[in-house]
């Protein structure tokens, strides 16, 4: 019988610890045992390299995020961790186990929320959970008990006998989250958990994920929403073009890659003006350590936005609007991964 409750995790983690030990940034609790451990992790599809030699560790109880634009390799990484995609090369252990050898044992302790809902449209809400529980070798009675509890948890109890099809996007997402918890996993993998949801639905999902984290469930998620990463993640890595380009807590990343504040100057320009920089006439030079110029907007990265704005006025610039704001993870993201579309 395969333990579905993660009771043997500790034993497996010792193996992981023996293999590797490293310091962890001060923002996370000091842990030495890694749930996920990757070194030089690589995934190739034919000649295309989706993940190119990345290193990371995820500790128990941590909320760990993969941030990056579409096609950065986040989903491929998640699928390797979920043992549904074979590792091309490099080292990967989950719960201290090798996915190639112990795929089923690992999956028995994982919860997975895939990017697409993959619900069974031929079954009711409750039956979706029941059959999924059976896949984990739960008895019907136990599966039913947990399913009811989980529907309560994701606020779907009153829909339990309905078909899946008419559910809203947010409800389907919550149902997938409930489904991923049926085996009481100690590690939950979430691939873009809130993409496509309205704000109410997103906040409800975040709220549930936060409660799971409080209960000690380790979260590992991908997202391209900065607010989601800031809300949920203790620590994150930014991926771009199959590699990890930065790692740290949200605050650390902001401190490291951008200034404290950003001054945004927006200019009203005639449509026929083509020369990008003519309207600035070099008047912003030396104002800040980094200035980013967009077609109708200038971003000035500075420690003091108000002062920089005053200087711009003194130098004769007359922007149509001026905004001073605290810099965010979004600035880090754009700095690291660029502004060009990757779709």
């Amino acid at each position, binding site marked *: 019988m395969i333990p579905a409750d993660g009771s043997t995790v500790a034993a497996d983690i010792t193996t992981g610890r023996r293999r590797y030990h490293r310091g962890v940034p001060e923002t996370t609790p000091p842990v030495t045992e890694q749930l996920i451990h990757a070194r030089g992790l690589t995934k190739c599809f034919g000649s295309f390299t989706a993940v190119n030699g990345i290193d990371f560790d995820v500790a128990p109880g941590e909320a760990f995020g993969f941030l990056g634009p579409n096609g950065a390799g986040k989903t491929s990484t998640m699928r390797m961790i979920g043992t549904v995609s*074979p590792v*091309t090369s490099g080292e990967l252990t989950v719960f201290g186990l090798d996915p190639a050898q112990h795929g089923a*044992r690992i999956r028995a302790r994982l919860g997975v929320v*895939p990017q697409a809902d993959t619900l*069974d449209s031929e*079954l009711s809400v409750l039956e979706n959970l029941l*059959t*999924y529980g*059976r896949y984990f070798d739960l008895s019907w009675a136990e599966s039913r008990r947990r399913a009811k509890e989980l529907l309560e948890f994701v606020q779907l109890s009153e829909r339990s006998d309905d078909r899946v099809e008419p559910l809203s996007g947010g409800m389907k997402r919550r149902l997938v989250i409930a489904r991923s918890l049926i085996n009481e996993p100690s590690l939950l993998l979430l691939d873009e958990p809130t993409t496509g949801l309205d704000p109410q639905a997103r906040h409800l999902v975040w709220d549930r994920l936060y409660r799971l984290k409080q209960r000690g469930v380790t979260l590992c998620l991908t997202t391209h929403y900065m607010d989601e990463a800031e809300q949920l993640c203790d620590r994150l890595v930014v991926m771009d073009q199959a590699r990890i380009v930065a790692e740290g807590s949200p605050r650390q990343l902001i401190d490291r890659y951008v200034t404290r504040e950003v001054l945004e100057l927006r200019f009203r320009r005639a449509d026929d003006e083509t020369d990008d920089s003519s309207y600035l006439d070099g008047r912003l030079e030396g104002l800040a350590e980094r200035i980013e110029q967009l077609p109708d907007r200038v971003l000035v990265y500075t420690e003091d936005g108000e002062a920089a704005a005053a200087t711009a006025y003194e130098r004769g610039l007359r922007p149509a609007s001026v905004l001073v704001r605290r810099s965010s993870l979004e600035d880090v993201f754009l700095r690291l991964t660029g502004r060009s579309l990757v779709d």
Partner: protein
Amino acid sequence: MTITGLRRARPGAIASRRSLHVLEHDLLVFRRGWYSYLLSGLSQPFLYLVSMGIGLGLYVNRNGGVPGGVPYLDYIAPALLVTQAMMAGAFEAAWPIMGKIHWDKTYFAALNTPIGALDLLVGDLMWIGFRATLLSVLFLVVIVLLGAAASPLVVLAVPVAVLTALAFAAPIMAFAATQTGDGGFTALFRFGITPMFLFSGTFFPIERLPLFLQPLAWITPLYHGVAAARSLALGQVDPVGLTVHVAALVAVALAGLWAGRITFRRRLVV
């Protein structure tokens, strides 16, 4: 790479007992709409049996009938028992499997659990076998009630029908795992299943086919299913012939399973 990874996981095994959970899932779906499954599965062979066996049979029998002087109804009843199983097996292995892989992607949900790709293959194949068994038993009852069963051995035609269903389902499942649209199924049914239904000895002996087409009929699995079931139903069993027919069906089913191992892994474990 892909395959070695999995082979290390379960050396030599085709699938684990977890495939039973896949079967359970299918049965749960079945519980919801069993009447429409059975209605659509049984109505067609029943209507063919009455129309061809009784209506058209009148004219066949009047003209001396099929070789051996067997009533036409008795002649086509076991053949229709096998063809309905073929239809059920072929259909369930095509569109529904494509749905689970490509449209609804429910296979990928199952793969996030201890279930493996081969559990899905074997589990769903068991489901198709179960469904074919149910339909075949019910159709056998219809045959007996219509008085179209010449020998008690007709009971053994049911396992032959189920085996035929699997001989179609296994390779078609393997094929479904290579498809990204249902265009291939349309061609398969139009140019494979329908001609087999019409020319593999169902309605007339294949000796009536032009000489050059007869070897083509011999190599179709449906011919072997029909020939085996008919010999049992008419009580004219030739042990050697029966063995050959059954062996041919088993061989095709196993070849399909083997191909499915490859295509399921290739499609689902990437």
